[in-house]
């Protein structure tokens, strides 16, 4: 067992865990942040995606012990003061989720991606979304929600 601190959503969490404990498990079990979902546990499904120093990363392919001195952001910190982000609001409005299991990973991935590329094409959105598996929606409404946010930004700038 090792003792170390993790910084998650701006808060420090003292953690006692084996080095082999995945970040996804430490977030859920030790930090009690269960918004990060665990799907495939080998980096394929994207459900556990969190931000490490602002960059989307699979929490199941990181050992929590590696994250000392890094800033982790999970879905719990995306909405501020209970107010959904434009992306979350758009997913809600255009029916971009059904069971919601994959949604946290998708929101985290695209909050980061839209910061980097605020006005993506549909093709770019679909390419990035390929890293997050959704078994309910068929993806169309997720793409629609993301493009709505991108287009609103375009309109706001015009």
């Amino acid at each position, binding site marked *: 067992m090792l003792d170390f601190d993790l910084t998650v959503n701006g808060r420090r969490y003292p953690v006692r865990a084996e080095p082999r404990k*995945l970040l996804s498990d430490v977030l859920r079990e030790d930090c009690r942040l269960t918004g990060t979902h665990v799907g*495939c546990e080998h980096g394929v499904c*994207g459900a556990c995606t969190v931000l490490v120093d602002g960059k989307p990363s*699979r929490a*199941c392919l990181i*050992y929590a012990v*590696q994250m000392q001195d890094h800033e982790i952001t999970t879905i719990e910190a995306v909405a501020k003061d209970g107010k959904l982000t434009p992306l979350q609001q758009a997913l809600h409005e255009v029916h971009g989720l059904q069971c919601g299991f994959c949604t946290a990973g998708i929101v985290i*991935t695209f909050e980061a991606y839209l910061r980097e590329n605020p006005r993506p094409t549909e093709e770019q959105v679909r390419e990035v979304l390929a*890293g997050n598996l959704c078994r309910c929606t068929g993806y169309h409404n997720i793409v629609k929600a993301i493009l709505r946010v991108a287009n609103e930004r375009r309109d706001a700038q015009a």
Partner: protein
Amino acid sequence: MKPAPFRYHRPRSLADTLQLLVTLENAKLIAGGQSLGPMMNMRLVQPAELIDLNALAGLDLIAEKDDFLEIGALARHHAVESSTLVKKHCPLLAEAAGTIGHYAIRSRGTLGGSLAHADPAAQLPLVAATLGAEIVVNGKRGERRIAAKDFFVSMMTTALEADEIVVSARFPKAAAGDRHAYLQFSRRTGDFAIVAVAAVLHSRKLRLGIGGAEDKPLVFEDFSAHEDPQAIARKVREAVQPTESPRVPALYREELVEVLVKRAVARCLTSI
């Protein structure tokens, strides 16, 4: 899907890393962990000691030298694909790096990790071999540079000695007027390629790299740009001997080699 227990080490210097590597038994190096992580979670690999390279400073730099770019082993794929230096001087590398896995995989996976892992279908070994890159490694006998064609030995096997690690790779700069193409075929976006083709046109000579067909990247040099793309594609097809597998018959890969080479050559000859 949880890894077997291991002891964790996070050296702060290259010297400490090399020291750990020669002292510890059954040790594995981890950088981005995008290949090793799944293998450990599935317990295909069970190292007793894990040496984390992520705290090593200065190994993620992308630097322009006289006739090559030097890219540190810890440079993430996303940094490579979006680097203006790489896009300008090694556009084939930038394009291929942008096709690795998915967005979140690219923000964590590293150049050195991909080269050292040496998956025969991976993008970076193919590009390194096609461009004639040099892999810079460091070990207890000091630094040495290994030509990519000698570095990749066979499936997931490199010329690295047990005490050595990859520190950087040197990719020759493209000359003005060079053209390139990178094409791969996989069943789903983000999967490893069944076959990948990298092509470079330099002063009317074509160099072709084939990934995924055999146990390491293959390179074919000195095709003339005046030759018919279909004829080149036939020649390359006849020169490769794809491995037979229950899911992907050798014949299927041969067909892919021919089709992708033809398209890659055509793209080099027509792209602006």
